[in-house]
């Protein structure tokens, strides 16, 4: 039996994320036959595109089948999904082209160099953000940290999904990276198992812990901390939202806050916005401070 999941207009406010996590919940289960219907959808941001692409692959991984009702797409949403390559990835009728979107991307296995090229050439390197080459390299490095974290700690069986978008009117450059793995709270609860039983640690507490300095990075190469990313976003006037289980993190206006949300999502979604104006950014010279360590 086919179930139809309705995709509505999805932006970046809380209601939209609740809708995404509702779709994830309704599509849980093995061997489902799912159709996505866009009749009520007037707009999809890059966060929704990355999430829906990942959800479709998750359903397939669980032995199900996915169909997108392309004929229910409005002109604007259809153009967006065609332009960013989402439609092409799922057998839709239109090929991608270069515009204000940054391509939808699915990496089944980690390839740091390919992802760096995606960020450098297709996301940051389009001339939309007016920053020095040195600072641009620092931005790419920080985004690559998110991508590598998603692979190494997410343990997503289907890999990592990304999509970006440039909003010229708002002068914003956005990127979403999502995985459908075990989520940050699972890793933190395991880490703190000698001190707390799992039920004693709320998801928001786990997220707060993961963002603290010194919680990360085994010298053997892997880490679970996010303090480096936090520092970068705060200093550069960016905005970052992260969802994992019921945990929620917001970095905006130089401040970071943690909250518990009602809707559970087992994986991790990171949505980041950068301002396309160099006056918001640290100068490269400010980043080089002696002593090094």
């Amino acid at each position, binding site marked *: 039996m086919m179930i139809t999941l309705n995709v509505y207009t999805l932006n970046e406010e809380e209601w939209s994320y609740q809708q995404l996590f509702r779709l994830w919940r309704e599509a849980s289960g093995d061997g489902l036959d799912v159709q996505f219907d866009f009749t009520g959808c007037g707009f999809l941001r890059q966060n929704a595109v990355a999430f829906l692409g990942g959800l479709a692959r998750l359903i397939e991984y669980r032995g199900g089948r996915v169909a997108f009702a392309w004929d229910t797409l409005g002109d604007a949403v259809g153009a967006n999904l065609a332009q960013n390559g989402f439609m092409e990835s799922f057998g839709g009728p239109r090929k991608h082209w270069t515009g204000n979107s940054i391509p939808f991307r699915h990496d089944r296995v980690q390839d*740091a*160099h390919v992802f*760096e090229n995606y960020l*450098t050439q297709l996301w940051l390197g389009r001339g939309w953000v007016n920053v020095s*080459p*040195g*600072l641009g*390299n*620092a931005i*790419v*490095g920080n985004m*690559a*940290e998110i991508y*590598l974290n998603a692979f*190494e*700690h997410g*343990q997503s069986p289907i890999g990592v999904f990304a999509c970006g978008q440039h909003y010229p009117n708002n002068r914003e450059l956005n990127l979403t990276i999502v995985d459908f793995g*075990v989520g940050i709270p699972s*890793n933190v609860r*395991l*880490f*703190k*198992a*000698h001190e707390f039983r799992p039920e004693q640690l709320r998801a928001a507490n786990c997220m707060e812990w993961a963002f603290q*300095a*010194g919680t*990360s*990075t*085994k*010298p*053997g*190469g*892997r*880490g*679970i*901390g996010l*303090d*480096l990313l936090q*520092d*970068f976003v705060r200093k550069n006037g960016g905005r970052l939202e992260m969802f994992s289980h019921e945990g929620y993190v917001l970095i905006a206006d130089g401040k970071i806050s943690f909250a518990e949300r009602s809707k559970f999502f087992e994986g991790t979604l990171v949505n980041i916005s950068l301002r396309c104006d160099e006056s918001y950014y640290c100068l*490269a*010279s400010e*980043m*080089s*401070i002696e*002593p*090094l*360590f």
Partner: protein
Amino acid sequence: MKVNVQPLVGAVCMTYDDGAKLHDAYRAAFDRGEEVVLDFADTRIFVSRFFNAAVGQLLKDYGIDEVRHRLKFENLPGAAVAPLRHSVENAQRYFHDPKFQTALDRVLEAQAAEA
């Protein structure tokens, strides 16, 4: 001893494997008590994992003061400073806080088992 990083790993310093390659290139000289200079000319992208392997693992066998004294950096781009510092600070904690090390090992072993 001086090691030119770019010819060894390329301009993009992102992976643990590339960091290990750099570490292997100078470790014997460092163990002999030599001063080692890492020249980062023509490199541009950096991720902390690279420095975990390239530098952080030195902290297992050497104190931070000795590493500071005998491991030098030339032409290090500004984009490399934060990941390098982050990596060294965490390595220092990992190798000198047994409770932290045990807890982190537990997480990473569990991840490896489930992978």
